[in-house]
């Protein structure tokens, strides 16, 4: 599938901001199943300085600094992305027993496997706790293939938890999400990661988008018109298998990847530090629009912003 992704962020300040430094992780990364055209970036006021780089995880980061006095900051990213149906895993892919995966992670000297061990450890938003292990256990009986077990866990999170955008904030501790059985995609991704890590497996957080318009006859998916998040588990020898607990599925052509990290903190879409500003408000509008026409005729459609 081909998409035009438009991500608009608008800040309003009650008093002047004299200086502001920002990091945007809003440029989708290139993968074997995802190809990106150059993004069109519009920032108002114009940044005095901006620089793109790759972070530790290989994600694309844009640093920009606004040095003009302003009370309004608008940051728009428009990117055309093609997502192929070539992710390395499908729900029916074979995989080793989960204990076997744990053992390989611990013992195999393959550099790729060694790299994955970073994602077995606690991270700022995800600290393991026996309660996550208890929750995960029913899906992980001895000898069960990893992907089969994870598919089950993914489904349980989807069925047993309520999607509730008003219940949590980024500061809500994960054990509260577990005990209250409520949260948003970010919480469900973190929860899945915590469960996997508490079993001694490697899991990472994926930040991205989900297609806006549902295909005919299918229900509209939760998480549209906003940033989305899911998780991936490492299968030695093959790579990372992605799971979307919010929608009880394995991401496919309709999941567009921005980047990944240990948890949300590594891939927050837009952060900044400002001087001045008083109180401030934020509006975000995301639109994921499929290309239905050839590229050239579709330029204008991509510009339209759809408020979330």
């Amino acid at each position, binding site marked *: 599938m081909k998409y035009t992704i438009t991500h608009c*962020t608008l*800040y309003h300040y009650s008093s002047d901001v004299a*200086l*502001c*430094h*920002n*990091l945007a992780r809003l440029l989708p990364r290139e993968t074997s199943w995802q190809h990106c055209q150059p993004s069109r970036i519009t920032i108002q006021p114009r940044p*005095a*300085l901006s*620089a793109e*780089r790759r*972070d*530790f*995880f290989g994600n694309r980061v844009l*640093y920009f*600094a606004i*040095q003009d006095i302003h009370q309004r900051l608008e940051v728009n990213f428009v990117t055309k992305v093609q997502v192929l149906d070539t992710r390395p895993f499908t729900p029916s892919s074979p995989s080793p027993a989960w204990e076997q995966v744990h053992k390989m992670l611990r013992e195999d*000297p393959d*550099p790729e496997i*060694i*790299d994955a*061990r*970073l994602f*077995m*450890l*606690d991270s700022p938003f995800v600290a393991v706790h026996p309660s996550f292990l208890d929750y995960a256990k029913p899906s992980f009986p001895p000898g069960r293939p990893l992907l089969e077990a994870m598919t089950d866990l993914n489904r349980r999170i989807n069925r047993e938890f309520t999607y509730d955008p008003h219940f949590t*904030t*980024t500061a809500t501790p994960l054990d509260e999400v577990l005990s209250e059985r409520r949260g*948003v*995609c*970010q919480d469900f991704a973190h929860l899945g990661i915590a469960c996997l890590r508490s079993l001694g497996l490697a899991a990472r957080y994926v*930040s991205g988008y989900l297609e806006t318009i549902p295909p005919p006859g299918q229900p509209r998916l939760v*998480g549209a018109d*906003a*940033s*989305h*998040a899911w998780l991936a588990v490492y299968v030695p020898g093959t790579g990372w298998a992605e799971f979307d607990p919010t929608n009880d599925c394995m991401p496919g052509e309709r999941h567009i990847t921005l980047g990944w990290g240990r948890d*949300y903190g*590594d891939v*927050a*879409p*837009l*952060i*900044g*530090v*400002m*001087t*001045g*500003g008083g109180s*401030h408000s*934020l509006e*975000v509008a995301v639109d994921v629009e499929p290309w239905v026409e050839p590229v050239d005729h579709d330029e204008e459609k991509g510009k339209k912003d759809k408020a979330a």
Partner: protein
Amino acid sequence: MPEASLAHQDNLNLTRGGLLEDYPVPSSGYDEMFSAPGQLRSHWHDMARALEEIGGDELERRHSEVQRLLQTDGVTYNTYDDSRGSLRHWLVDPIPLLMTGEEWSTLAAGLEQRTRLLNALLADLYDQRLAIRQGWLPPELIYAHPGFLPPCHRSLPAGCRSLIFHGVDLARGPDGTFRVHGDRAQSPSGAGYTLENRVILARALPMLYRDAPLRRLASFLETERATLTGLARHNPDSPHVVLLTPGPNSPVYFEHAYLANYLSLSLVEGEDLVVRDGRVWLKTLGGLRPVDVILRRVLDGFCDPLELRGDSLLGIPGLLQAVRGGHVALANALGCGLIENLGLAPFMPLLCRQLLGEDLQLPSLQTWWCGDPTECSYVLANLNRLVIRSILSNGPCWDGAQLDAAARARLIERIRTNPYQFVGQEPSSLSTAPVLQEGRLAPRPVTLRGFVVADGDGYRAMPGGLARVSPGLDTLQASLRNGGISKDWWVLAPTPQRHVSLLRQSYGPIVVTRDGSDLPSRAADNLYWLGRYLERLDSTARLLREALGRLLEWEQDNTDERCLDDLLDALDIPVPPVAESPRARFFNLRQELLSLITDSEHPGSMQALFEGLLRTGRAVRNHLGDDSWRLLNRLQHSIQEPPKGLSARQTRESLEEELVLMAAFSGLNNETMPHHQGWLFFDIGRHLERVLHTLELFKLAFVTARNPGLPLWEVVLTLTDNLTAYRRRYRSALHPTAIIDLLLFDEGNPRSVGYQLRRLQRNVGRLHRPISSTYHSAEERLILESFTTLRLADIETLATLLRDSTSSSTELTRLLDAVHAPLLKLSDALTHSHFSHAEVPRQLITMRP
């Protein structure tokens, strides 16, 4: 070693009869001075002879002298956990710790290799990570340590080194071998204290230090200075190098100020710096001034709230990006905290072979990292004889032998849950070194901190460093944080070394500046408040002295006490009801007055005001001369540590003493500070405070007085230090017109309101203005308003009013208020124009996915 041939006989003569007699050489372990009882190590012969010549009693006297010098120099070590009275004085033992040149060469080579190795490790771990991918290091050892900061990945431009300055904690084991106990990279403190110890001891014990065959420290600091300068990418001829400190609350702030002065660096805090156009700038009164190099003494995580810890108030948003751009160099680079990881110890030999292709020269303390299952089992099986530590350099520590069953079980549980975070270590049996104890030498466990600095393409170790001894024999490890006593560590040279002044020669071309417009705005702010606190403390002390004096007179002869009530008003103390018995009244009032000296909870008390004075003074430590600082230390001693149970009379005497110290402090600042921007703010602070106080007193005496009249006028003249001037001028009874003239209008009288206003007007006019304009600044307009009102007032009318009736004081009130009101706004105006950097950067809110 020339001394090696000294006869054994000579050796015995030395120890017979004095200081060294019965030195209890520990039966096990390594003593630095004696190889066995009575067997002095040969490199100690000269020192032992010199110490014997000086004798125990004299050494004790010199030792007290050393402590006194340190205290007057204000050498302190703060502890975070002890918020009040938190300044702990630095303690130094007068007996140096000697090391032979040969032994030093070996140790120095080992230290320099270690720094090279750790620098190579940092370069690898923040780029290719071969050490992890090739399996030389377990990934969890690095990734689970909070010192590993992913944002620092590939943040250093090509050719830059991570480690510029490195501190290494060392101790000698029972076999005489030095072993590394830890590394310090984020804020490797101690070099400044080392220098100060050397300076003070050389002053107190010239007979030991003059022409002593010891390696001097000065050239090491010259190297550090040259290295820092060489890091600059811009302005190679005169780069701007700053020392970034967490501020006066840092435990080692003294050292930051000391080093900044010694190395001629600007001492700055995070809020003094800003990143614009990808560069780092210092906010000064004259505008933004580019910064090329930062000697950093703020922990990694706190340096950049954009990319590191978002809650940090000490950092500079955008700093890491400025580093990536190559526009500013940091010593040390951000992210270097990961080498402080204690779990690296077992892997050092392999890393050294792999990264440097060399064998590791300097061993580490035997350490087992619990992240490895085999090592962990060993540690758990030997828990009762090992020391368990967190891998964090300042983390908790357990002595396995001291744990009871419950504590042991809890610790085992903690290790099992989080094995990566713990190491087991061989208990460190430290070597012992002689310290002075009641006129004798006694052995105490000693640890060393060595320092290594980048020098050209390589590294260079400081010949010496900081030696620390535990107060007792059983202490696990002496540490800066736990107090302890420091020693001067001598590296012996083959021949006597010329004593080199630690004051440096200039390093190259210098841009001569005079106007002080490069003064950091924060420093200006602090100097202004230093002036205000000093003056407020002074006027409070004067009021208290006067009130106590009146109280004592009244107690003696029960005469006129009416002025006392007005003084109580001025001090904001409620006047007790007249119904009280005189005796109860006396004790009540005495209590109230004394508590206004000692009660630090009361915002107007001498204690609280002095705390403000000290806080602002410490924040501009590098602007105050050594003598000024000695005066502040004496004031501190007098105000904050008064003898218990002082009588009212004794308190009054100590107030006299404190007033003299304050006058000396203020006079010294006038005499020694260049009268440029910094001094102007200090002076404006003082005179603004003084004019406000004088106006309030004047109003008290002539408008709101409970007991108006001659006695009160005299009190006001005394309080404002005008009585002598008045008597000399008029030699007569007090006359209101004369008083008004002297106190308000006489611009030649340095205690008058008119004089203060003229001085304020002149000094505010000389302040550097960020934007040049032909118009008067807001501050200038306020002073002009006040001054004009005063000058236009008609003294005759005022005097008539006063003479005629006390009730018709509205005219006077109106005048005083009209002079007073603009001055109250002056402080805000100054803040707005000159110190408005105070706004703290904040995080933007973010939308959740």
